[in-house]
C-alpha cells in the first residue's frame, strides 16, 4: 500500500485537521472531531446533516457551507459514523426548525442513524438516497445503494433549506430528487482501504468492474475494458432504461471521478455520456464533472442523471459556497 499517511490510525484525524485548517473561513471541527460544521451557524432554518464512512471526500464535509449542509459526520474509512456523532452534530447545528439527515442506503448507515434518531430529543427527519441502478433492487431486499446522486440531493435540499423550506418540505423535496436520480459506476482499479493495507479486489490488466459501488463493492460483472463510448452507452442505457419514461426531459449530468481518474478522462466521459443522452432525447441542461463522491484512490467514474423540473433546476443553480462546490455567488 502506497499512501501519503503517517499511520493507519491517524489518517482520519490528520486529514480532518488539514481540511478544517485549509477551509477555516467556511468550516470548523466539532468536539472530539465528531463532526464538521459551518463556521457561522444559521438560526431559524432546517438543519441539514449528512455523514457516512470516510474515503468519499469531498462528500460530505466538502459540502458543508452556505446553501448546502450544516454539518457532516465522518465515520472511519468506509464505516458509517456512530449515533453519538450524529447526536452531537444535531445538538450543535439545530437552528430551531428541525433536523434533516441525509443518509445513503447502507444498512450500517441506516441502523446507526436509527439509533441516533431514537435517542434524539427534537424532531428529526431522514432522506434515504438509493440512486445506484447497478444492482437490480427487486431481488435484494436491502434495496439499492446510495452513491454519487447523494451530492445532487444535498445540493438541492441544501438550497431549499437555505431558502426557508420547512422540515416537511425539505424532506419531501429530497425524496423527490432522489427518485429523479439514477447512477451507475465503473472501476478500472480497486481502492485500497488504509487499514486493510491492500487492494479490496484485483482486476486483470484488461478488466473493468461494471456497476461497482463506492466502497469497491463488486458490481454487475467483471468484463474486458471497452472504449469509453461503449462504457458510456452501457451506463446511460441502464440509467435511461431504469427511468422508464424520459423523452424530452431536462437533465443534470454528473460525471463523478472515484479519486484516481484524471480530469482529462472525466471530461472525455462527459463528452461521451452527454452525446448518449442527446441520442436518447434528454437535454443536458446542467452538468458537473469532477471528484465529488470518491472511493479513495479507485480509478473509474460514475455517471449520475437527475431529471430536473423548474423548481429543482432553480435550487441547483442557487448560491452555494462550500469547500468543494461553489457557484452563484
Amino acid at each position, binding site marked *: 500500500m502506497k499512501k501519503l499517511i503517517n499511520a493507519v490510525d491517524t489518517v482520519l484525524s490528520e486529514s480532518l485537521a488539514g481540511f478544517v485548517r485549509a477551509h477555516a473561513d467556511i468550516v470548523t471541527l466539532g468536539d472530539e472531531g465528531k463532526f464538521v460544521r459551518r463556521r457561522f451557524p444559521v438560526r431559524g432554518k432546517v438543519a441539514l446533516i449528512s455523514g457516512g464512512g470516510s474515503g468519499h471526500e469531498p462528500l460530505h464535509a466538502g459540502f458543508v457551507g452556505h446553501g448546502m449542509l450544516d454539518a457532516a459526520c465522518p465515520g*472511519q474509512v468506509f*464505516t*458509517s459514523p456512530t449515533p453519538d456523532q450524529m447526536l452531537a452534530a444535531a445538538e450543535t447545528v439545530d437552528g430551531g426548525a428541525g433536523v434533516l439527515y441525509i443518509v445513503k442506503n447502507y444498512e450500517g448507515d441506516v*441502523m446507526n442513524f436509527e439509533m441516533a434518531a431514537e435517542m434524539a430529543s427534537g424532531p428529526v427527519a431522514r432522506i434515504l438516497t438509493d440512486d445506484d441502478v447497478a444492482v437490480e433492487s427487486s431481488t435484494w431486499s436491502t434495496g439499492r445503494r446510495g452513491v454519487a446522486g447523494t451530492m445532487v440531493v444535498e445540493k438541492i435540499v441544501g438550497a431549499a433549506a437555505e431558502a426557508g423550506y420547512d422540515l416537511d418540505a425539505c424532506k419531501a423535496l429530497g425524496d423527490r430528487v432522489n427518485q429523479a436520480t439514477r447512477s451507475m459506476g465503473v472501476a478500472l482499479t480497486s481502492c485500497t*482501504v488504509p487499514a*486493510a493495507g491492500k487492494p479490496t*479486489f484485483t482486476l486483470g490488466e484488461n478488466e473493468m468492474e461494471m456497476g461497482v*459501488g463506492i466502497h*469497491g463493492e*463488486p458490481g454487475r460483472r467483471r468484463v474486458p475494458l471497452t472504449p469509453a463510448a461503449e462504457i458510456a452507452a452501457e451506463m446511460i442505457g441502464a440509467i435511461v432504461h431504469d427511468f422508464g419514461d424520459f423523452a424530452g426531459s431536462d437533465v443534470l449530468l454528473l460525471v463523478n471521478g472515484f479519486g484516481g481518474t484524471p480530469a482529462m478522462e472525466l471530461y472525455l466521459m462527459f463528452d461521451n455520456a452527454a452525446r448518449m443522452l442527446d441520442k436518447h432525447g434528454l437535454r443536458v441542461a446542467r452538468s458537473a464533472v469532477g471528484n465529488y463522491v470518491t472511493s479513495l484512490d479507485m480509478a473509474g467514474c460514475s455517471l449520475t442523471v437527475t431529471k430536473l423540473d423548474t423548481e429543482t433546476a432553480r435550487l441547483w443553480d442557487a448560491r452555494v459556497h462550500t469547500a468543494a462546490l461553489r457557484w452563484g455567488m
Partner: protein
Amino acid sequence: MQDTMDRLFETVTARIVAAAEELTELDSAIGDGDHGSNMKRGMEAVAADRAKLAALAPGEALKTAGMTLVMKVGGASGPLYGTLFMTLGKELGAAPDRAGVARAFAAAIDAVKARGKSETGQKTMLDVLVPVSAALSSGASLAEIREIASKSAAATVPMLAIRGRASFLGERSIGHMDPGARSSVIMIEAVLDVLETKA
C-alpha cells in the same frame, strides 16, 4: 463471576484482534473490507474500560460494553453487536442460571433481528447466533455448541446474501463465508474457551 466477565472481555478482545486480518479479508471479498478493523476498534475500546467494567455487575458490564460498541464501531456490526451486548446485559439479571442466560441470549438475538430487519438464511451473523441460541436453550453441551457455531458459519458459504453489503452482489455473494458469521464464531469460541477452563 466478575472475574469470569473480565476474562471473557479479555479473551474475546484478544481473539478478535488476532483475527482482524482474516475478518477484513472475508469482508473484502463480499463487502467493503473493514469488518476486521471495525471489530478490533470496538473490542479494544471495550477492553480499555476493563477496570471500570470489572467493578460492575455482569449485566451492567455487558450493557456498558454494548454501548461502547455502538459508539465506537459504526457500520452494520456496531449497532448489531452493540444491540446484542446491551440487550444481553439488560436481560441477564443479577445471578442468572444457564436457563436465564439462554433466555437473555434469545432476547438479545431478537433485538438484533429487529435492529437489522433480518432473519436467518440471509447470510449474516444471525446464521451463527440463532442456531447457537437454540442449542443453548435446548441444553446442548459446550462442545456441541462449539461444533454448531463453526458448522453454521461454514453453512453461510453457499448462501445468497439477502442482507448487508453482500446482498448488493446478488449471485456473486455465493461461495464466501459471511464476515459477521465468522466474527460471531470467534467470539463464541472465546467464550467457550473461558467457560471450559473454568469448568
